[in-house]
């Protein structure tokens, strides 16, 4: 398990350590694209882009599908993991906020009790 995670991390870091590959991911975040589109966009040869996409695909960040003569690239399954991870971070933020709000609610309840007793006197 540790080995597997380590290997995946190595792949991800390797894949993300290159500015072009990060650009490709950003591009695919906006829309799917063929390798030819990507090669044009990043001013590189088809072979060069194929290599970059291969590295991203190996890391699970991109998936490709060949339809006819065109290979289309899109963000890989990691996209879902990214979403789950973001929602969890967001949940933790609100959970921390709400823990503090619990304390405020508790303090106000105590205060009402005390005030209520005063009024009854």
């Amino acid at each position, binding site marked *: 398990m540790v080995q597997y995670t380590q290997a995946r991390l190595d792949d991800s870091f390797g894949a993300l*350590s290159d500015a072009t590959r*990060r650009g490709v991911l*950003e591009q695919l*975040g906006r829309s799917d694209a063929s390798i030819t589109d990507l090669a044009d966009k990043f001013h590189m040869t088809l072979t060069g882009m194929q290599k970059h996409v291969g590295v991203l695909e190996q890391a699970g960040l991109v998936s490709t599908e060949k339809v006819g003569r065109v290979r289309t690239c899109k963000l890989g399954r990691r996209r879902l993991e*990214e979403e789950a991870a973001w*929602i969890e971070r967001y949940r933790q933020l609100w959970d921390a906020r709400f823990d503090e*709000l619990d304390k405020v*609610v*508790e303090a106000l309840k105590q205060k009402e009790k005390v005030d209520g007793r005063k009024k009854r006197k």
Partner: protein
Amino acid sequence: MDARRESEPTPMKNRTTVERKTERELVTTRTFNGPARIVFEAWTKPELFKRWWVPKSMGMSLLSCEMDVRVGGKYRLVFAHEASESTFFGSYLEVTPHSRLVWTNEESDDGPVTTVTFEEKGGKTLLVMRELYPSKEALDAAGTGAADAMVETFAQLDELLVALGASLGRS
């Protein structure tokens, strides 16, 4: 910390849930052990709001908090994080005491409209917060989506790589 939690039992902590209900909407829920009147007050009085909105774990502080809680009234929150400041502002669209608050988030064009409802049952209050974004893209961009979340992740990775003195041969 865990040890302390065990030795000082506190009332059972309620669960916070967050779910992306639709392409444009994020829904957060939480129950509070108090009447809606009190929970509502904590959302609408600045001096109370300030006590919980910025937990220490956020690593930020709230520099100022102005809230004019009535329909059409404005709010403005200024946060400090390290050397930078950020401002959040908008206006209240609906204010129904103890049951419903709706406000806009106008610091960006893609900000959501936030609806918070307070439903009291047996002395407890179920709070539901709905954040409705103008488009799927806007919610994606707020963090769930690939593009922006990744840019952020890359920034963190970049920092990490620098910190590790990584010998990845970046050109």
